[in-house]
């Protein structure tokens, strides 16, 4: 087995183990909430999904910049995988949030700034993936996607700060703020294990997906020389 395959295997196993522990903690060990009761356990999946989505989008930013600097399509593939993960996790966070909101807030949905900006975040990266389908030229696609990948990241701090900048139904942050709000230690530990489980699972999926995309990509010419990228005349065939 190659080293890469070994790393993938290990990440997968650790992710699975962490996931099992996270489920056990979330369902059986963590106490119910004084105000919200049992339904508050959705915290242990809703919040990790949202946070790991932010990380995935940060990865899109990093990989997009890396592509723009070196024009290596491997970075474009990595950026794309990050966006796929981020879109899936954001959609999951929205659905889980809705299920949580119905019994607690009393509504499945509302147009407050946190929810609206999260939808905009989702649409931005769906747009990133959509932009990729416009051109048959991998370098043109990669360049356009990279620009979108950099610009779209502005949505992440907007979503995070939406509950502080505007008056919302969604409560302000508990953990991700300078003066964290009171949180039972067992609950906090359970949340962090959930974040670890989601992160490892996302990493495992990301590694596999990147490998699959790399295997499917057409062979590239020799590495770029000091003279810079080889320019192909517009309309030329690769």
């Amino acid at each position: 087995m190659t080293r890469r395959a070994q790393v993938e295997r290990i990440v997968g196993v650790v992710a699975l183990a962490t996931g099992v522990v996270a489920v056990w903690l979330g369902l059986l060990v963590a106490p119910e909430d004084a105000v919200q009761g049992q339904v508050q356990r959705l915290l242990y999946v809703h919040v990790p999904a949202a946070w790991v989505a932010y990380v995935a989008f940060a990865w899109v930013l990093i990989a997009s910049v890396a592509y723009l600097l070196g024009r290596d399509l491997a970075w474009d593939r990595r950026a794309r995988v990050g966006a796929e993960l981020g879109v899936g996790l954001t959609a999951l966070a929205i659905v889980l949030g809705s299920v949580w909101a119905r019994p607690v807030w009393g509504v499945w949905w509302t147009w407050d700034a946190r929810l609206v900006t999260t939808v905009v975040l989702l649409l931005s990266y769906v747009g990133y993936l959509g932009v990729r389908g416009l051109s048959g030229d991998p370098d043109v696609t990669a360049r356009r996607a990279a620009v979108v990948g950099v610009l779209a990241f502005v949505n992440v701090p907007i979503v995070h700060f939406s509950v502080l900048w505007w008056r919302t139904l969604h409560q302000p942050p508990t953990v991700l703020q300078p003066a964290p709000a009171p949180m039972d230690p067992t609950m906090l530990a359970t949340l962090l294990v959930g974040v670890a489980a989601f992160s490892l699972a996302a990493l495992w999926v990301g590694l596999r997906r990147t490998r699959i995309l790399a295997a499917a990509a057409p062979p590239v010419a020799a590495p770029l020389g000091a003279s810079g990228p080889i320019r192909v005349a517009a309309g030329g065939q690769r």
Partner: protein
Amino acid sequence: MPRTSRSGVRLLVVAAVALAAVIAVASIGLGDNLVYYRTPSELASAPGEPGERIRLGGLVVDGSITHLDDGVTFVLTDGTADTTVVHRGDPQAVFAEGHGAVVEGVLAADGVFRSDLLMVKHSNEYRPPDDAGAGP
């Protein structure tokens, strides 16, 4: 410099549509909701048009919850001003005194806010039920 081509125009169209969609979602979705609810003080100083449907938010005053035949009445406060709310319908289990609530409805002429949608705005604190420090 890329040559103007079908794909270039297509890209512009996609970008324009995407931008329009984002702006539409943001403005329709946010719009009035940028200020998601008014506080009792704001409502007192600017009651709005008669019959105007608005949202009011605040803390449910301890001891103010009284159940009625077809709903519940309680008082919302922002620490400075209070508004009495009469809500039609039964509140969800999470609704309780000492916690936040946002109601949607109409401010009646008698100064009572008559609502038909009751949302609970819970705090960012998480603690188990037996904790002595539990509070708003």
